[in-house]
């Protein structure tokens, strides 16, 4: 079975490719370049095309499948064949699948399941990464604010932190928000 993964994100494409490699009898092609997409798909002659929902070229691909006479076998969005549950799962995960007419549903399902799992895993990875970055940035801000309090009011470090924590508790806000306010105010007052 020939599978084309069309994704402008090379990182995600490789995560999906790796997942699909565990399936038997699959030859996988990755297309990340927008230009000449249709020609590339024509050359690959895939049985299945996987494409993320955030790709502007979906309309291009759908038109190609609808009107192209270059393809020996027509391709349609797999919604024609599959059960509603796995369609919903794939839309939720953000992946669309186009399947050549006549491919047995039994062969499609495991593949879609893997793609959906990989898409979800990739999305989780990204949100974990964003969270980790956010946490790091918060810690930096807290450190900066602590330094400002220590310098401007001559407080020792634990006391500076305690002051921020107390302000946070009194106002029902997060320490990071208090720290952010201190840093912003300090900047506005001409500090560095």
């Amino acid at each position: 079975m020939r599978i084309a993964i069309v994704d402008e994100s090379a990182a995600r494409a490789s995560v999906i490719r790796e997942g699909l490699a565990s399936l038997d009898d699959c030859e996988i092609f990755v297309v990340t370049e927008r230009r000449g997409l249709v020609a590339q798909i024509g050359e690959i002659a895939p049985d299945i095309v996987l494409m993320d929902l955030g790709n502007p070229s979906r309309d291009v691909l759908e038109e190609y499948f609808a009107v192209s006479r270059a393809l020996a076998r027509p391709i349609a969005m797999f919604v024609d064949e599959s059960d509603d549950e796995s369609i919903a799962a794939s839309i939720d995960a953000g992946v669309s699948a186009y399947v050549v007419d006549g491919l047995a549903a039994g062969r499609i399902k495991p593949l879609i399941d893997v793609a959906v799992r990989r898409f979800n895993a990739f999305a989780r990875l990204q949100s974990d990464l964003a969270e980790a970055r956010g946490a790091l940035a918060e810690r930096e801000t807290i450190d900066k604010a602590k330094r400002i309090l220590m310098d401007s009011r001559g407080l020792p470090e634990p006391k500076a932190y305690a002051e921020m924590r107390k302000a946070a508790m009194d106002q029902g806000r997060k320490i990071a928000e208090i720290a952010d306010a201190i840093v912003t105010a300090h900047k506005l007052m001409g500090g560095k």
Partner: protein
Amino acid sequence: MAEELTIGFLPLVDGCLPILAREHGFAEDEGLSLDLVKDVSWATVLDRLLYGHSDAAHMVAPLAIATTLGRGRPAQPLSVPFVLGLNGNAITLRSDIAERVGTKGKLGDPAAVGAALAEVVRERESAGKPMRFGVVHRYSSHNYMLRYWLAACGIRPDRDVEITTVPPPFCADALEAGEVDGICVGEPWNSVAVERGAGQIVLATAQIWRRGVEKVLALREPVLTEKRGAVERLIRAMCRAGKHFVDPANWEANAAILARAEYLDGDPVLIRRAIADQLLLTRGDKLVHFPDFMFQYREAANFPWVSQAQWLYTQMVRWDGIAFDSADAQKAGRVFRPDIYRSALIGTGEPLPGASSKVEGSVSQKTSVTTQQGTMTLESNRFFDGRVFDPTHLAEYIADLD
């Protein structure tokens, strides 16, 4: 507690009404909380609508009909209770071609531009390099307007020229790279191409059909039934947004809102131009004012005329090469729901036409029409070739097109 509605949209200027209904509190006044979901392809906007991620969607009108008729995928009945706007698209050609066929410094006469273009088309054909045009979707008004114009000028789409799909954000790129010779797209994408020196605007689609239906608000039929009350309130909120959108006093502020990252993520200067019906045809040139380039409010612009849905069906028959089927024609007509529009606006100050269908292209001067409520004067709604579309004679109309 405000009722929530989720609406899908593509980042285009004519996605403005739901956005402004939310931003100016018109939706809130109607007890609605709008959640707007941005996507980058019509396929995804449609998928989200069909699989319940969204309740309603900003959509190219023919796609709502194609989906109902099961063109390209299994049929799912959609309903259109509100038209988001008429026209607002333009045809931009690569500069070397535009200079041969266009009228320097102003929009040309569609028939004259077409006649000049036909010569270029023949040359390119004999050189073995047929011209290519990009449109945003097969089932878009852009595609049908472009094809209507070309065919009426003796240029047969799919035989003399190729027409292919190019996503709006890639239009300027595709022109620049020579992947296509011309594009028919909405704003701000023509202006982006012009500003980059990738092409010149030669026609506005409003010159091809003065009052051509463009984007619609589409819902799955069962969702419309289930959320009828909320949809009617949304219609009232979007009508207010339309009134606000066309008022020059608000152009600046609305352009700034639409330009924001969560909406169009674009240049407010280009967006304001479109709102103000101004076009920069050629880079470095003066702005040209073309009245009713976009058409969002006057003459009950948002009224879903059954005749307009049926005109789109005739074009689908024509260009998909399918047989005319009177049951399908009726089904297509029923996608547009003037009954819902009327029910939402009865008792408000908005005019409601007496009829729900009209002979398209038949008005050539200001004509007052009978109404159910308020007063209404229609201005020219002509097709550039003078052809008239009478929805009571669909089969004859199609047969008469070549």
